[in-house]
């Protein structure tokens, strides 16, 4: 069954096909949600809310864009809503210990600590960016979307997406440098 057929059967009431959608997109949505919440438990809850929302609104998808564009648009809006509702909380949030899914399992504790620190620096720098830069950067890097796809999700011309990505990355670099300054780790970072 192809994606279009699956969506149609969900729209006709076959809930079991939605399970396939969750499996297919859960990691992508989770990585986006994590970028906003910086906490794996909160990101799990948010990802769950996003899927419930997607299911409830599945009938509003009428093939006017690709399904993934529609899906990311809903997800992005939910994430931005979440940030707005949790502004206070975010100011005091630090990355939790959590279980990190490192690709190389045989890394030592030292390497592990360095990676954790890199993660933390990058997420915090991302968080400090204005929304208009942060979202395209996350869609580009975590969702691997093209300029054209990001343009569709954000309803912006591709040229604007290119400009925002360029400026966003420049700003991100500045934030990373100022955060990392005076830190021995900085040399290991870049």
């Amino acid at each position, binding site marked *: 069954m192809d994606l279009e057929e699956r969506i149609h059967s*969900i*729209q006709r*009431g076959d*809930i079991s096909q*939605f*399970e396939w959608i*969750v*499996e297919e997109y*859960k*990691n992508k949505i*989770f*990585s986006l949600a*994590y970028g906003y919440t910086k906490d*794996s438990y909160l*990101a*799990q809850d948010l*990802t*769950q809310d996003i*899927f*419930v929302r997607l*299911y*409830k*609104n*599945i*009938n*509003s998808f*009428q093939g*006017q*864009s690709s399904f993934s564009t529609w899906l990311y*648009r*809903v997800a992005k*809006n939910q994430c931005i*809503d979440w940030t707005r509702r949790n502004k206070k909380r975010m100011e005091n949030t630090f990355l939790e210990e*959590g*279980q*990190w*899914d*490192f*690709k190389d399992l045989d890394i030592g504790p030292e390497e592990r600590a360095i*990676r954790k620190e*890199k*993660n933390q620096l*990058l997420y915090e720098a991302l968080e400090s960016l204005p929304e208009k830069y942060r979202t395209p950067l996350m869609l*580009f*890097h975590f969702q691997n979307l*093209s*300029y054209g796809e990001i343009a569709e999700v954000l*309803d912006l011309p591709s*040229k604007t997406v*290119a*400009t925002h*990505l*360029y400026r966003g*990355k*420049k700003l*991100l*670099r500045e934030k*990373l440098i100022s955060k990392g300054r005076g830190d021995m780790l900085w040399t290991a*970072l*870049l």
Partner: protein
Amino acid sequence: MDCSFIKLYLELLDRGQLNKELEEGIKSHIDYCKECSQELEEIREINNLFNEIQLPSLPMDFTSRVMGRIREDSTSPEKNIWQEFSKWGVSFVAAGLIMFLLNFVSFDFNIVTLTITEKNPDIINKVFEYAPSNILNRGFEQIEEIIENIGDRR
């Protein structure tokens, strides 16, 4: 090609997503332009960081938890009201929006739109999320025309 154009495409060069012609053009520019090759270096440094980023993993039972919640809520998909609207035709929807906006024209259209978007971006987001964009765009075009006409009359 000038540097400000090149800089917007360095990201795609690094990802190998440019067409051959553009890729060759940009590469030969970088060979002699110090500024752009420096920019590319900086972009690559940040991208390496992104490539190394790690995410905590989702629990194994995540999907069944989501499905459980959906079934438990006995949530069913909502009807798409825009679909219903579209049956009545674009002009009807546009006319409705225009009527709504005309009520506020005496306050000055710009102020009204700003207030709506600033006070409740959710509403605007929702409209854009669910409405077929072709209907919205055509509706907006018609509204813009009418607003221009009103402006002219003033």
